[in-house]
């Protein structure tokens, strides 16, 4: 059975290493914070100017001056630091953030990503996504393997305007875990009950299956 959103987040959380500074995008990536493994200390960066993002505030304690990049009310943790947007993206560009997790509309088998614009539709803007994908050392995309029409989102080449080029390192979809390699997508793990055949069928880009590819366990 394909993974649900929580499971995608849970699987991505296993990529976190102790001491990582991590930027989590809006949507599924935000859920990753709920599954940080025991004994792994990570610091969450929010690109509107916060290191050490804590959970949502208790009812009645929310503060309009304390929000995350998704404009949600959040809290600080002991050891947090506040800074301006220039320094925030400065540390991202300088490679100080170890991992960025974000969603995508399309990923190409060379690591290109498209997630900000659909021609003909109202364009809301790229926000910080272009800065993040251009700069992060390590980018994991969290997304559904296919769009609502059932078409693959893992493509030989993005059809939508790009957010960044050759930057995605890993993709976790409802069907499996994929590295982006010089030879295209490489399936490392598949969701419980999902067949390699189904993955092949739903992946439009170049795809190889790792020799030791295994079923995910939760």
């Amino acid at each position, binding site marked *: 059975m394909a993974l649900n959103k929580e499971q995608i987040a849970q699987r991505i959380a296993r990529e976190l290493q102790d001491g990582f500074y991590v930027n989590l995008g809006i949507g599924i990536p935000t859920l990753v914070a709920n599954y940080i493994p025991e004994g792994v200390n990570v610091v969450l960066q*929010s*690109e*509107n*100017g*916060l290191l050490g993002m804590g*959970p*949502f*505030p*208790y*009812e*009645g*304690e*929310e*503060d*309009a*001056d*304390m*929000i*995350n990049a*998704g*404009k*949600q*009310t*959040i809290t*600080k943790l002991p050891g947090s630091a*506040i*800074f*301006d*947007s*220039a320094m*925030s*993206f*400065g540390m*991202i*560009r300088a490679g100080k953030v170890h991992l960025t997790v974000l969603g995508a509309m399309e990923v190409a088998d060379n690591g*290109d990503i498209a997630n900000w614009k659909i021609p003909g539709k*109202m*364009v*809301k*803007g*790229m*926000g*910080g*996504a*272009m*800065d993040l994908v*251009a*700069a992060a050392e390590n980018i994991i995309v969290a997304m559904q393997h296919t769009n609502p029409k059932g078409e693959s989102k893992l493509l030989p080449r993005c059809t939508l*305007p*790009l*957010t*960044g*080029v*050759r930057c995605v390192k890993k993709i976790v979809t409802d069907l499996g875990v994929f590295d982006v390699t010089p030879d295209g997508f490489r399936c490392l793990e598949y969701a419980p009950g999902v067949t390699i055949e189904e993955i092949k069928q739903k992946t439009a880009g170049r795809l190889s299956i790792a020799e030791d590819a295994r079923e995910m366990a939760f």
Partner: protein
Amino acid sequence: MNKVVANADEAIKDIESGATLMLGGFGLCGIPENCIAALVRKGVNNLTCISNNAGVDDFGIGLMLQQKQVKKMISSYVGENAEFERQLLSGELEVELIPQGTLATRCMATGYGMPAVYLLAGVGTEVAEGKEVRTFKGKEYLLEEAFDSDFAIVKAWKGDTMGNLVFKDTARNFNPMMAMAGKITIAEVEELVEPGALDPNFVHTPGIYVHRIFQGANYEKRIEQRTVRKKQ
């Protein structure tokens, strides 16, 4: 050296139609509510606004959009605003979308006297169109120019009469860079204090960057996404 003005109306009195303004804030967090209200009252139009977002329909820069005061928005993200969308699709409003970090850094560059900087964001995308691409140590960068603006309008938590500013939490966001970047910088603060009341070691924006300052009134500080958890 008297930088104190009575209120927002006095602070913005020489902002004319056609001006380029920087407005601090991220979403509705840390926006100069009093000055936006005064700009709506004054009725200036044809404005170019550099601001990370464009407010919501009935708050923030959205209030200026309702009055059709904005000719062009330069932003990184402009969702959450139906009137904005209508004006954009009808061609009444011009929009330039810029990656958020590039927007912040182009403001900072102005305040640091750097005419242009090389930045990573947007290489290989439509953002790169028409821009110089240059390789340093094997990586490609875009040349991005510093922003010019006639006025920067920022919101701080506290400020003193010499223009020194202190921001609170994530309401800091774009405010410090924009404060540095205005030909004329106007700061509205929740609390205006005398020189000596702020610790010099913890001033975020030194007064040299601020030309006018006043204590704002009736801050609404609207929350866009109220997310909370229950006490257990």
